[in-house]
């Protein structure tokens, strides 16, 4: 399977403090890839690098088969970008903005643009600068979709939008993805939204990608276990232990990763009892993962 986005050993630095180092990232074609991470972890920087807006110090970026930033103009014709901050000319009206964009994209779909204009209930005579935050978000999504891109890159597209607008934007996005085999790379910290729609998940923290797995494996693989009578060092566990917490008596709560039901047998081998397996939703799993990475001395 080809990858829509491929990042190899990316290194980037901005100022003294922040840097991306040894970043490897893969977005399979046709996937909806959720890019998670706390603020300041490097999500927006990574996205800017992927689009050729920034130049890396080292490493290789390939988007839709072409090298970035060398072939950026050619690639960008097939990429729909919705940035975090509104970036369009504030004096142009909605209609004029549409006309402007249409001139640059060979595959522009006018009927689609008109349809979305009605669906999003945007008044075409309002200047971009006068639109509300939600309307701006809707318009930028509209522009990205009307391009008929092969890849959609969305940087916190629903951040700060009210729930109704969020639903509209996501519905339009998913509608498009159903029509075309487009790939979606969406960064967000609205985890509950990503939970529904993503089939891959990549988690950034502090300039590193700490995990990249199919969504099902991430969600189902992270569990909270109630364990009793376990020895201080649990060697040879088939799963990865993210955290161990003593509760009371000999009872402990373990947070583990890459769990599979058969692994319950392991506890007998160390003379412990597994009392309960509790599911964690994506948000809890994400928090536990981050916590475990931060508590651990820097490795990987």
């Amino acid at each position, binding site marked *: 399977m080809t990858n829509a986005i491929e990042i190899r050993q990316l290194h980037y630095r901005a100022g003294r403090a922040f840097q991306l180092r040894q970043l490897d990232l893969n977005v399979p074609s046709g996937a909806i890839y959720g890019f998670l991470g706390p603020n300041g972890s490097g999500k927006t920087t990574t996205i800017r690098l992927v689009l050729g807006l920034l130049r890396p110090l080292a490493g290789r970026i390939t988007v839709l088969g072409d090298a970035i930033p060398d072939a950026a*103009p050619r690639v*960008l014709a097939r990429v729909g970008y919705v*940035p975090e901050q509104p*970036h369009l*000319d504030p004096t142009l009206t909605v209609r*004029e903005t549409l*006309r402007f964009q249409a001139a640059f994209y060979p595959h522009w779909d006018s009927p689609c643009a008109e349809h979305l204009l009605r669906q999003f209930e945007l008044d075409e005579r309002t200047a971009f600068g006068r639109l509300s935050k939600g309307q701006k978000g809707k318009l930028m999504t509209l522009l990205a979709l009307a391009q008929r891109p092969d890849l959609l890159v969305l940087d916190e597209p629903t951040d700060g939008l009210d729930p109704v607008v969020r639903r509209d934007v996501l519905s339009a996005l998913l509608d498009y993805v159903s029509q075309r085999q487009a790939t979606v790379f969406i960064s967000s910290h609205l985890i509950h939204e990503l939970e529904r729609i993503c089939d891959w998940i990549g988690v950034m923290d502090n300039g590193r990608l700490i995990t990249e797995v199919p969504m099902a494996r991430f969600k189902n693989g992270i569990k909270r276990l109630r364990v009793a009578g376990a020895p201080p060092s649990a060697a040879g566990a088939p799963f990865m232990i993210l955290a161990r917490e003593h509760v009371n008596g000999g009872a402990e709560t373990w947070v583990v990763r890459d769990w599979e039901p058969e692994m319950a047998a392991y506890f007998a081998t160390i003379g412990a009892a597994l009392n309960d397996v509790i599911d964690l939703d994506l948000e809890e799993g994400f928090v536990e993962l981050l916590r475990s990475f931060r508590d651990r001395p820097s490795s990987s």
Partner: protein
Amino acid sequence: MFRVMLYSQWKWTRLIVALGSIAAFALPLVSVQGAARADSNPLQAGELLQAVQSWGTLYPVLAAALGLLVAIATWAPDHRGRHVHALSLPLPRWRYVLLRFGAGATLLAAPIVAVSAGALLPGALAIRFALAVLVAYAVFFAVSAGTARTAGIILGLIGSVILVQIIAGVANVDLDLFGRVQVLVLNWPGPLAIFTGRWMLIDV
């Protein structure tokens, strides 16, 4: 692409271009008008020339102002959005810059035509005005096109020249940097030579 670029730039600069065109049209007329006298004495050739010449100093000022304002207005939307929009468009940077430049230059045609219309003949004055406007526009366009860092570099250069001049003055070294630069740039064949000299409606 050029059409939509032209349209968006017109939206930003239409006031400047409109007012500039009116001023450009009026300037030749007013400069002649100012020479007319209320009394019945026949116009003295000398007085006429003097009057026209004094109004003439406004031409380079108008040209520079037009070039500056149109250049700034051209890049204003990009600076507001930190160039994200321009850089995310599917065309090479140099082509985008060229489109912007061309659009601005096209819009500046209006005041240029206005000058020749006002002067009633497409003479040397109109051509000279055209060149002056375009030179000013190009210079300020180049400065505005860059990032804040580029503009900073340019200002830094100017600042360091000033600094060197001051130090030279203090050290009593005879170093007239600004004079040299001025001579280089403002006299022919320097690029800004077009702004100097006398601006006359009639070839004197």
